[in-house]
């Protein structure tokens, strides 16, 4: 049961990743692209966790943790750039 | 346990980092004192290393107490000790020269010079090819920052070329290391020499690819045709004391070529023996042609100096490319000579530029120099030795190299080019000298005189020209023994694989 649902989730995450990429390429505005990137980060977290469950290994969970934290910083910096141009002032 | 061999690396690092701390940070005077004392100590350390090496000892040092090939090792043999001493001498003179005021033109001058020396010394001493890459990075990143010392548009834009090309070079270096590690499975150069002897056919070809890639990176550092075009502008716009230390940078590339060619791709390497040697020979001849053109057309003293550096690279690599024991020994002599003389000439160019106001170091009639006599004498000595005129070291070097290239098929190419290079230098120097010193207007303005320590710095470097000629006998004995040692290492690489201290 778990195996099947894991497979379904992996397929869905893959589709989500593809769609994120599509949205990122298509744009057309910068906020949309930034949003796509942020979503890509979140989906990657999901991907790593699910994959960890499939492999029964927690070795990569810290990577997910870092994506969660650093992805936020990255998005925040991008937004600040849109807002002010100068991100550290 | 003797840790002397680590000092040429650790000591500059400590000197550099200490100067970032509050005690030294705010006082340029304190920085000068510690840097000069430190450089002098380094010279003493290097001399001690050289003495030990010239007695025939090979110092092996297993860093982290891991036996080779698993850990990184330092190798203090005749070749590396000689190069380290050369670096220390340059560092001392450059720092002395800079202490007259150039050091105050921007931040971190001494720390960066120390880091640079650390990188260069490390590159000479390491026995591990990845560690060589690391030290290349250290010396490069320090050189990037030193190039822009003193600021200005020219320096920055010339530095951009240098930085970009070297970043591409580092990327290729990594590729090459990846390939070589893939086929040989080891990074210790002596161990690599052992492993190349046991490769199968497709591994040999892959190693060739990696080896040739490595050669192209070293050729970029050495400024071999067609990878030398970046050098004149970069060197000519760099600050004087910095570029004096840079005189050794091309030699780092040449050193790496010599090391790799004579250890890993030496006579026992089977199909990989003398990998790329033909290329080196042909391209070195081409380098001589290009440098000759450059020397003749040089519009300023520093440009002339830069093209002379390339000329010396061509000369050296002709000897390396010819590949006999004699020619290699001659190349080592010439390397020492050309580094010191080149550095001295850059500093002379810097003094000239400083004293001539608007015309700087351009070879045009202009305001009279403040100290025409002393500068003239230094210029004259530097010119003689760089042209290869007797009785100074340049003559001995050129004689040794030409004599060592003794097969008629090779000398037909090498001799004329070497001699024409000398003639071009002669023409360029007599033109530059008579313009700068004799076609000047106005009386010398002694208020513009340069600091005495600048002349002392140049004097230290230039004193090598007569001394190396006078003691050419012992020095050639040393270089001959160095080549013998390299051959012995190639014959049995296990003798330079360090063992740690037993627990």
């Amino acid at each position, binding site marked *: 049961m778990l195996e099947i649902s894991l497979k379904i989730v992996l397929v869905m995450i893959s589709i989500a990743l593809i769609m994120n990429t599509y949205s990122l390429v298509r744009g057309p505005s910068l906020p949309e692209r930034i949003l796509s990137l942020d979503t890509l980060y979140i989906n990657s977290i999901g991907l790593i966790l699910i994959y960890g469950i499939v492999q029964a290994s927690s070795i990569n969970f810290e990577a997910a*943790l870092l994506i969660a934290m650093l992805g936020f910083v990255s998005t925040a910096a991008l937004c600040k750039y849109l807002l002010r141009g100068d991100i550290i002032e | 346990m003797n840790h002397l061999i*680590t000092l040429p690396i650790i000591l500059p690092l400590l000197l550099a*980092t200490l100067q970032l701390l509050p005690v030294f940070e705010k006082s340029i005077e304190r920085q000068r004192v510690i840097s000069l004392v430190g450089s002098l100590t380094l010279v003493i350390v290097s001399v001690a290393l050289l003495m030990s090496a010239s007695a025939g000892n090979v110092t092996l040092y297993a860093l982290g107490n891991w036996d080779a090939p*698993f850990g990184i090792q330092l190798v203090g043999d005749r070749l590396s000790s000689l190069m380290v001493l050369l670096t220390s001498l340059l560092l001392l003179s450059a720092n002395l020269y800079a202490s007259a005021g150039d050091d105050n033109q*921007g931040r971190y001058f001494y720390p960066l010079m120390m880091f640079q020396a650390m990188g260069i010394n490390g590159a000479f001493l390491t026995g591990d090819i990845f560690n060589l890459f690391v030290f290349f990075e250290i010396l490069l990143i320090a050189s990037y920052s030193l190039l822009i010392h003193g600021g200005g548009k020219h320096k920055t834009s010339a530095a951009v070329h240098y930085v970009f090309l070297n970043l591409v070079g580092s990327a290729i270096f990594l590729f090459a290391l990846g390939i070589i590690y893939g*086929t040989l499975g080891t990074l210790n150069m002596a161990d690599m020499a052992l492993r190349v002897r046991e490769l199968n056919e497709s591994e040999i070809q892959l190693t060739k690819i990696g080896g040739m890639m490595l050669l192209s990176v070293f050729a970029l550092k050495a400024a071999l045709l067609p990878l030398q075009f970046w050098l004149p502008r970069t060197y000519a716009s760099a600050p004087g004391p910095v570029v004096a230390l840079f005189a050794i940078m091309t030699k780092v590339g040449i050193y790496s070529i010599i090391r790799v060619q004579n250890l890993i791709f030496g006579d026992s390497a089977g199909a990989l023996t003398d990998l790329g040697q033909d290329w080196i020979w042909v391209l070195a001849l081409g380098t001589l042609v290009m440098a000759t053109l450059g020397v003749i057309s040089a519009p300023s003293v520093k440009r002339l100096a830069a093209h002379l550096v390339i000329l010396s690279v061509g000369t050296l690599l002709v000897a390396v490319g010819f590949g006999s024991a004699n020619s290699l020994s001659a190349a080592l002599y010439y390397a020492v000579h050309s580094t010191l003389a080149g550095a001295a000439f850059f500093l002379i160019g810097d003094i000239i530029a400083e004293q001539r106001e608007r015309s700087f170091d351009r070879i045009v009639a202009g305001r009279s120099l403040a100290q025409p006599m002393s500068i003239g004498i230094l210029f004259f000595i530097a010119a003689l030795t760089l042209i290869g005129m007797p009785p100074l070291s340049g003559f001995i070097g050129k004689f040794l190299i030409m004599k060592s290239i003794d097969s008629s098929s090779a000398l037909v190419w090498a001799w004329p080019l070497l001699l024409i290079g000398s003639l071009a230098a002669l023409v360029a120097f007599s033109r530059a000298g008579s313009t700068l010193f004799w076609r000047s207007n106005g009386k010398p303005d002694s208020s513009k005189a340069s600091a005495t320590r600048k002349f002392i710095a140049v004097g230290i470097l230039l004193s090598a020209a007569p001394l190396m000629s006078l003691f050419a006998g012992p020095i050639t004995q040393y270089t001959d023994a160095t080549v013998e040692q390299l051959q012995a290492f190639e014959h049995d690489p296990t003798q330079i694989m360090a063992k740690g201290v037993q627990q």
Partner: protein
Amino acid sequence: MLNLFWIPLLTLIGVFVSLSANRVSRTACAYATAALPAAALAIVISYAPSVLDGEHFVEQFEWIPAVGLELAFRLDGFALLFALLILGIGLLVILYARYYLSEQDNMPRFYAMLILFMTAMLGIVLSENLIQLWLFWELTSISSFLLISFWNHKSEARKGARMALTITGMGGLALFAGILLIGQVVGSFNLTDVLAQGDLIRGSELYPYILVLVLLGAFTKSAQFPFHFWLPHAMAAPTPVSAYLHSATMVKAGIFLMARLYPALAGTDMWFLIVTLTGLATLLVGAYMALFKHDLKGLLAYSTISHLGLITLLLGLNSKLAAVAATFHIINHATFKASLFMAAGIIDHETGSRDMRKLNGLWRYMPHTAMLAMVAALAMAGVPLLNGFLSKEMFFAETLQQGSLGALSWILPVLATVAGIFSVAYSLRFIHDVFFNGEPINLPKTPHEPPRYMKIPVEILVALCFVVGIAPGLVVAEILHSAATSLLQGETPYYSLAIWHGFNFPLLMSFIALLGGIVVYATRKQLFEFQAQFPERDAKAIFDQNIKRIVDAATRIYGTLENGSLQRYTMLFILSVALFTTVPMTKLINLEGARPLLPVDGISIVATIILVVSTLVTLIWHRKRMIALIAVSVVGLIVSLIFARFSAPDLALTQLSVEVVTVILLMLALFFLPQVTAKAASPSSVVRDLGLATLIGGVMATISYAMMTHPQTSIADFFIANSKTGGGGTNVVNVILVDFRGFDTFGEITVLGIAGLGIYKLIARMKLFMPSADLNGIPWSNDHHPMMLATVSRALLPLALLVSAYIFLRGHNLPGGGFIAGLVTAVALILQYIANGVDFMRERSKLNYQWLISVGLIIAGATGMGSWLFGYPFLSSWFDYFYLPGIGKFELASAMLFDLGVYLTVIGSTLLILGNLGALTTHARPEESK
């Protein structure tokens, strides 16, 4: 012992004596200068009796034994003759120069250079080793350069000096190559060996090259046609220099060399043809040109060229008698020409002019000088009872003996007589024009006799001309014999030095020459008119033009190659890499190795697609910087996912944290870049770049594929096996980083630290333009620090620090370590900068990032050095396990301390860069910060 060494050594010391004699009177300076050469002369004379008895002396001293280079001196008859000439005439010139130089001239400098030249010249003639001979040979070129340019404020002196240096320098290099070739054939550079191996050299296939190269050296030095043109321009030198260098000594160096190597090189048809014809051409050209020079010194210069040609011609004849005649003429020419130059110098000195169109009738003003000059000039013309007559007779006789040209052999004596005619004519002109022929015209000074002592050198030399001319057997027979013997390295043939040989052909030729000379001089008006039809060719201008042409051509060629284009240099580099690697790649038959490929799964395909798409987006939209930046972030993310997928969690973590720092760095930099995008590349360069990228990309991809499919064995197995037992950690990657290869890490954090310092150095003084609106012209928002962001960020800081502490501590055993932890901390702090601003942080954080770098590096270094205390090499690690109640069993390792150094350096460097790059704008915006 080593007495010969004292000869050049004494004169060398004399250089410094002269230099230091700058405080004393001019006369004292001259005496001080003369002292050591006189001592050297004494040594030479002390050897003379034994040398004249046929002995020769060789002394040597090892210099570079490995290549057969030793300091070796040789004194035989020929060397003795030259040494006497050099020192004897040298001393006379020193005396003469004392009165010639004016108060303004720097006399010590002049003497020093003159003595330096004397040393070099002595070195040449006394050298036993050919390389050493070359050393002194070049030294004469250098010192002659300095002497010609002694009056360096004069343009003609500078140019004349440069021309002489360039021509003789060129010849010198050819000679060097020739000597090296001789060394290769003979196996030694020692004259004794070389002279003994004449047949070996002449038989060698290298002989033609050796001969041409050596002769190039000799001909340029001795001003032989067509290299003669530098000599007249060297006359810009002070006259003592001309008298010494350009008549008696330096120009004889080429002759000396030919004579010295005569036993080794002469005797072939090639030698005969080249040397004889060159000598003949020089003889004629010199004699003819001399007649038309209005400048006294110019006349003497061409006359010198002509006489040098005569000697060369004699040496070329391959006859022993001719060689004797050549030796004899060397002596004679040196004496009469040196005295003539000195006389010309006196005239110049006392009248202020050297122009023969102005100098007339000086007999009345300076009869003594005129007498001396006339005798010397008659010797030059070859008038009987003077020394010039004797050697000229021998010369004529030798041209008659020559049969090598077969049916054309008559041409040689005829041309020799023609040269003799001109020689008489120009000598007559020298005498008649200067001393008679009416009254002086517009001279700057009223002529009068020079100081007494100035005439003494001339008197001595003229007396020699007389004595030799009248009683040759008494005066020169012995030295001539010994010189000729050592020149020929064997017995000399019979010759007679008598003045009267009866009525014969040579006498007839002399008679024709005398008579013809008088006729030519009488008809000089017509000849001058004839000569005037030819355009004046100024060798200096031509030489200058040629040099300029070479420089221009070099500049043009070089300029098109080094055009300052970074694109081109990069292209050359990439092409070189591609070229170097493609050759072995074509030899690689099995691209795919034995290693089995892994199965493909869906997720990998998706990741690859995203990677490719986002890379393409970056490339296509690289001018729209923000889009490219976002796309690059995706590339980074996918790469870290790939690392995670292929079991490299450490790499994944590192890649992720580096990625964020990079993106922030890029944004900080992007802000300052010009808003307008750069001009699009031309289509051709797009095609070029695309081709280049495809090429190198293809090469790299092929190699990567080959590498990954080939099985490998490596030292990695050792690391895996020893990580826990030897390094005390289960995370092999971390143990490699901080232990096995800790030295690399040590180096890399140094790189990071330097990068921080370097970037701060670059930006510290920078003033940059700040755009006030974004790309689309929309002004920036006024909300500097949005409250939501500020609040969330502050909450994030402790969390992030906790995470980094966790990652740091577990690093040795599980993915993590100081580097990643440092980056996480740095990013968390940067977030505070972004969210709250520089001022906010400055109030709260007293961290000095530069010190942080320093402390980090010192901790890492000190950890390494700590092992010295225990007798282990740098960076040897130590670890042990401990137990504390409440915490449990834990491990302490020196590697952790090292990792702490890494951690601090990373934080310091990252923040030094980002914090300061951000702060650039803070100060530059005063109107807003209010």
